[in-house]
């Protein structure tokens, strides 16, 4: 008992582990709050598609030897978020097909770029850590942490300010429009926030797993609560618990951080499903 506690104390005396903790709490919180809206609006696939776009952008950024990859990844992902949402709504283009194409295309091109142009000796290692996050979160610099603190502060502030309107647009778009709420603008806002969360989360769990942080806590919370505010708050709490537990476990057991966090989120979902099923009896 005291063995692993003292080991944990040692680990957390390192600043990079503390940075990882801060970032995982923030990313978990932001992803889960927006996740409720995304899941309910049937937008979860857009999050998944965007994470692949972010992977492609990351590959391009490493190709260009950018000092800070976020400078490229963030605008590209935000742009794609806006485009995907637009095509998803138009009846003429098959929205799901477009998203599948963009997502797979970005994945393929990103891998191709990394393979053909990479100067690194360990291409598959690079690809793997971009996709699954692996150890990259432990190489966070104070600047990375500052960026994600600022980004998540912006996300949280926007979410709080527009909470009631986001609810209205999520629950009933037709009604929201009819009463003069600019639904398009709120969709845009939601898309931009998703993109920001995905870019932030890439460092934590990698681009393949980030959608898990968006979807699992939201679904878990819906098993337990029936009000929108209750579900949103619970989703945030569960996600933070999952992220912190996952991080601690991965540090102790030397497992990949992203995959461990997602595994904990899955476990939480199972527990919540059981509790929900028992209570509904």
């Amino acid at each position, binding site marked *: 008992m005291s063995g692993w506690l003292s080991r944990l104390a040692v680990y957390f005396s390192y600043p990079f582990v503390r940075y990882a903790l801060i970032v995982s709490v923030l990313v978990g919180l932001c992803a889960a709050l927006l996740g409720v809206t995304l899941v*309910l609006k049937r937008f979860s696939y857009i999050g998944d598609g965007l994470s692949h776009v972010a992977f492609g952008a990351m590959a391009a950024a490493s190709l260009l030897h950018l000092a800070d990859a976020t400078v490229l990844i963030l605008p590209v992902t935000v742009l794609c978020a806006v485009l995907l949402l637009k095509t998803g709504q138009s009846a003429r283009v098959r929205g799901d097909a477009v998203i599948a194409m963009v997502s797979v295309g970005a994945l393929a091109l990103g891998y191709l770029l990394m393979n053909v142009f990479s100067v690194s000796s360990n291409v598959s290692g690079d690809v793997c850590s971009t996709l699954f996050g692996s150890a990259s979160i432990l190489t966070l610099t104070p600047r990375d942490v500052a960026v994600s603190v600022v980004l998540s502060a912006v996300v949280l502030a926007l979410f709080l300010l527009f909470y*009631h*309107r986001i609810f209205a647009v999520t629950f009933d778009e037709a009604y929201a429009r009819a009463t003069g709420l600019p639904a398009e603008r709120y969709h845009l806002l939601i898309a931009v926030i998703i993109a920001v969360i995905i870019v932030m989360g890439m460092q934590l769990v990698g681009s393949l797993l980030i959608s898990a942080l968006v979807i699992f806590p939201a679904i878990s919370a819906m098993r337990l609560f029936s009000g929108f505010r209750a579900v949103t708050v619970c989703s945030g709490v569960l996600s933070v618990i999952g992220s912190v537990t996952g991080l601690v476990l991965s540090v102790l057991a030397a497992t990949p951080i992203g995959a461990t966090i997602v595994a904990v989120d899955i476990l939480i979902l199972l527990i919540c499903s059981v509790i929900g099923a028992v209570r509904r009896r």
Partner: protein
Amino acid sequence: MAQIVCEDLVLGYEGRPVVSGLSFEVKAGDYLCIVGENGSGKSTLIKAILGLQPPMSGRILLQDGLQPSEIGYLPQQTDIQRDFPAQVREIVQSGCLARMKHRVFFGRAEKKLARDCMERMGILDMEKRCYRDLSGGQQQRVLLARALCSAQKVLLLDEPVSGLDPNATLELYQLIRKLNREGITILMVTHDIMAATVYASHILHIGDSVFFGTAEEYGRSRTGRGFLSAEEGILGSGGSGGGGL
């Protein structure tokens, strides 16, 4: 004086007119039912009145001091809503957003308004319940309460009774009539032609031929007789949900 005046409207999608030559007016306290075959442009007309889709030609005028924000709307239910985790109160309160301009949170006035509207619809006792656990009729009353939060003068209802059982249908019709008698103008798109002739003061029939007039005139008109008898032929005499007055 008329609240809503439509003059020689042409409505359609992507440059293709669906309905043309539409002229009618709605006065305060009227109960207008909009009937017609599927695809005849009923929902398009609703969208045009709400200002969501500009008419291809013609005009829609709001008069008598009627503001767009004073028109309440009861849209058709969507898939998203059926399993949506939200409390009744949260949904009804969202009807107050239109009046809040740029304010971020609900104030005391909005909360009171939401309570009053829930009380009027007889759902105050279920304000904490989850929307998806309610029956179809209760859900419609929640959405009506939400519409009342934004509308003091006019309610636009898009097929409010579709999917309801006969009892819930009758209850909803009576609730709508009560609102109408309290002075709220009702515009209702419906397939329930029998109920339309029973409850409505005016009927607008759109389709191959356009009819606008009082409910009695509609029963005597060629369009109305054709539509009514076709309806009876399909449904038999007991097919209408709103028959019991």
